[in-house]
């Protein structure tokens, strides 16, 4: 009984008390309470399908009451500084706004390559054919001028079905 106190030199519990009760029990009630609350909260935020879309980093999506689930398409992201296509930076926002034309040439070229690739895969007999779907993730402070130019560029290349990604609020 006194082995630990003799060998280590300090006592976890006073010896008298220990010898009187013989054994001790952990008080787990509050821990179980915590686990129960955590469990309920996590079950509420459980989703079976997981996250389809990855968000670009320098970006805050606007909030919306939309409920449509996102699809797996290519993603044009308009962050605070760059326009990205599938995660690759294409052109700076300031350059887009500086130029006078409505179509963004560098983005148009990348979209053309993407479309050629998708159509090539479709011709090989894979399931995915070119459907003209594209998802646009825009930062909430993007001016409409920039959004318009990106959308016009997408439309010019045949991506007519645009999905605007938003954060869902209940």
């Amino acid at each position, binding site marked *: 009984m006194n082995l630990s106190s003799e060998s280590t030199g300090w006592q976890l519990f006073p010896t008298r008390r220990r010898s009187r009760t013989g054994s001790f*029990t952990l008080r*787990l009630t509050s*821990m*179980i309470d915590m*686990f*129960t609350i*955590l*469990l309920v909260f*996590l*079950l509420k*935020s*459980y*989703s079976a399908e*997981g*996250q*389809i*879309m990855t*968000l670009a980093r320098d970006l805050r*999506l*606007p*909030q*919306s*009451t*939309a*409920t*449509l*689930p*996102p*699809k797996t398409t290519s993603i044009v992201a*308009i962050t605070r500084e760059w326009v990205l296509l599938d995660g690759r930076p294409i052109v700076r926002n300031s350059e887009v706004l500086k130029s006078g034309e*409505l179509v963004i040439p560098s983005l148009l070229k990348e979209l053309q390559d993407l479309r050629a690739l998708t159509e090539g895969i479709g011709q090989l007999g894979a399931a995915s054919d070119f459907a003209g779907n594209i*998802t646009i993730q*825009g*930062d*909430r*402070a*993007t*001016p*409409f*001028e920039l*959004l*318009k130019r990106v*959308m*016009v560029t997408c*439309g*010019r290349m045949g991506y*007519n*079905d*645009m*999905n*605007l*990604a*938003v*954060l*869902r609020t209940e």
Partner: protein
Amino acid sequence: MNLKAALGRSRTRGEADVNIIGVLNLFLILVPFLLLTAVFVKIAVLELSLPAAGRKGGVATADKPAILNILAVEEDGFQLNSPYMSHAKLPRVGESFDYKGLQDQLKAVKAKYPESEDIVISPASSILYEVIVKVMDTCREAGFPNISLAG
């Protein structure tokens, strides 16, 4: 007398414990599993399609002579235009736009033309994306699900 004897006996034998080790094991497994699969950011999409092969939306949708509602979003407020109705301009109050007033006006249009579902939003260049999305939400909730953007 009897009660006192019973109490005394229970005290000498100690309190009864519920065996919670099984529940605890279950929790310890479930909590990490749910933490891994939890999705904290829910993403949805707003669908928006351009008329095929066209550059801009808006006036190009001439294939059906639907009731064309045009909502201009300017820096200083909303201006809704619909056929044979005149709407007051909804001024911007400080930082926030008058979404409530817009909803009322849209409902009035919906009451007059119940079959109308199309609306064209025409924002000014400097309007923020956040505002556009909110306007689109307002239109959808008021019963105009076919939204197009015109620049």
